[in-house]
C-alpha cells in the first residue's frame, strides 16, 4: 500500500481530501495518525503565546527615538542637545525657565538682541558650524569653558568692589549665560522650535535684569 506523502498530509490539515485520499485515511492507521499529529502541531502553533522582549530593548529603542527626534519631550530634548552634560546649576535654571517660559513663544530672536556687557556673542560666533546634536553638545561645553574664563576676569575686576554684594547676582548671571549659550546652540539646530525660542526670550530678559542690578550695585 502506498502511503500519502508528507506534503499531501500537510495539505489535508486544512483542505478536504479527495474520495481516494479519504478511503486511504480510513484504512491506514499510520497516515491517519500522522495527519492527526500534523493537525495538533498546527493547532499548537496557533496557540503559541506572544514573547516578551528583554527590558534592554526599550532602552536602546528610546535612545534611537530621541536621536531621531521621534521623542520630543522637554527633558529628552535637553538631553538630545547635550545639556545634561552641563553643570547641575544650569540644569536647575533650565528647569525653572522652562516652567516660566512654557512653549508658547513662536518667535526667532536675532543675534543683535543678544549683545551685552560680557560680549558673549564673540564666544558664540567662534563656535564651529554645527550639524549634529553631538557637535552641539561639544560646542556648548566649549562655549561654557570660554565663558567661565571670561567670567573669572570679570569677577577679578569686580572684586575691587564689595565682594559679598556681587556674589549672588554674579552666580545668577553665570547660570543664565551658560543657559543662553546652550539655548542658542539648540536654536541653531532647531531654529523654529517654540520651546527653545521661549527659553531664549526668558534667559535674555532675566539676564538683562541681572546685569542692570549688577551695574547699579557698583
Amino acid at each position: 500500500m502506498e502511503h500519502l506523502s508528507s506534503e499531501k498530509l500537510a495539505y489535508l490539515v486544512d483542505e478536504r481530501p479527495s474520495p481516494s485520499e479519504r478511503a486511504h485515511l480510513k484504512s491506514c492507521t499510520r497516515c491517519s495518525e500522522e495527519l492527526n499529529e500534523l493537525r495538533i502541531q498546527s493547532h499548537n502553533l496557533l496557540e503559541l503565546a506572544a514573547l516578551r522582549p528583554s527590558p534592554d530593548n526599550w532602552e536602546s529603542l528610546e535612545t534611537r527615538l530621541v536621536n531621531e527626534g521621534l521623542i520630543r519631550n522637554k527633558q529628552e530634548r535637553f538631553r538630545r542637545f547635550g545639556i545634561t552634560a552641563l553643570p547641575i546649576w544650569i540644569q536647575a535654571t533650565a528647569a525653572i525657565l522652562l516652567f516660566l517660559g512654557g512653549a508658547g513663544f513662536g518667535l526667532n530672536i536675532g543675534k543683535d538682541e543678544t549683545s551685552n556687557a560680557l560680549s558673549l556673542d564673540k564666544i558664540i560666533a567662534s563656535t564651529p558650524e554645527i550639524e549634529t546634536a553631538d557637535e552641539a553638545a561639544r560646542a556648548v561645553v566649549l562655549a561654557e569653558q570660554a565663558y567661565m574664563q571670561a567670567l573669572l576676569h570679570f569677577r577679578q575686576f569686580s572684586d575691587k568692589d564689595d565682594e559679598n554684594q556681587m556674589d549672588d547676582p554674579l552666580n545668577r548671571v553665570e547660570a543664565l549665560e551658560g543657559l543662553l549659550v546652550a539655548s542658542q546652540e539648540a536654536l541653531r539646530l532647531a531654529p523654529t522650535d517654540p520651546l527653545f525660542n521661549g527659553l531664549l526670550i526668558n534667559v535674555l530678559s532675566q539676564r538683562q535684569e541681572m546685569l542692570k542690578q549688577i551695574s547699579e550695585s557698583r
Partner: protein
Amino acid sequence: MNESQLIRKAIQGDGSAIRSLYERYSPRVYAVVRRIAGDDDLGNDCAQEAWISAIRALPKFRGEARFSTWIHRIAVNSALQAMRKAESRQKREVPITETIVASETPSSDALLAQRLEWALDRLPGGMRKVIILHDVEGYTHDEIGKMLGTAAGTSKSQLFKARGKMRELLKSLNTQDNREESETWSI
C-alpha cells in the same frame, strides 16, 4: 488614557505615550519578528526597526484598521525586509541534536512551546516565514503572497513542506528524549 489619545500624544513626540504603546504591543511585535528572524540578535534588531518605522509612520495611521493590526503588519514587513538582507549572508547551521536548555523545570505547556520555537528556528528561512505567517499568525495565502511578492500557490506549497519538516524535527526530539530516558534507566 485610551488608545487614540495615546496615539495622538505619541505623534506629538510624547515619550511616555510611546512607552505605553510599546508596553501594550511589544510582546506581539517581538513574537512575530523574533520567530521570522529565527535568531535572538536579528529578532531584537528587527523589533527595533519595526518600532522606529511604526512611530515614524504614526501620523499616517488613520484608524481604519485596529492599531494592533496596523503595527503587526509593519512588524511583519520589517522582519521580512531584514530577512531578505540576512539571507544574502551565510546561514548558520545548528546541529539537530542540540538539546533545549530549560532555565527551570518548565510546565508541559512551556516545554511544548519551547520545542515548537526550537523547531521553528531550525526551518529554512522560506518555510519558516510562511508557517509563521499562516499557522502562527493566521494570515491567508493571498495575504502572504502579497507580503512576500509571490503567488498564493507558492505560499501553499512552502507551508506544506514546512509542516512536514517541522513534524520531522519534533519527531527527532522525541526520539532523542526516548533514547536519553532508556539510558537513564539502564544505569
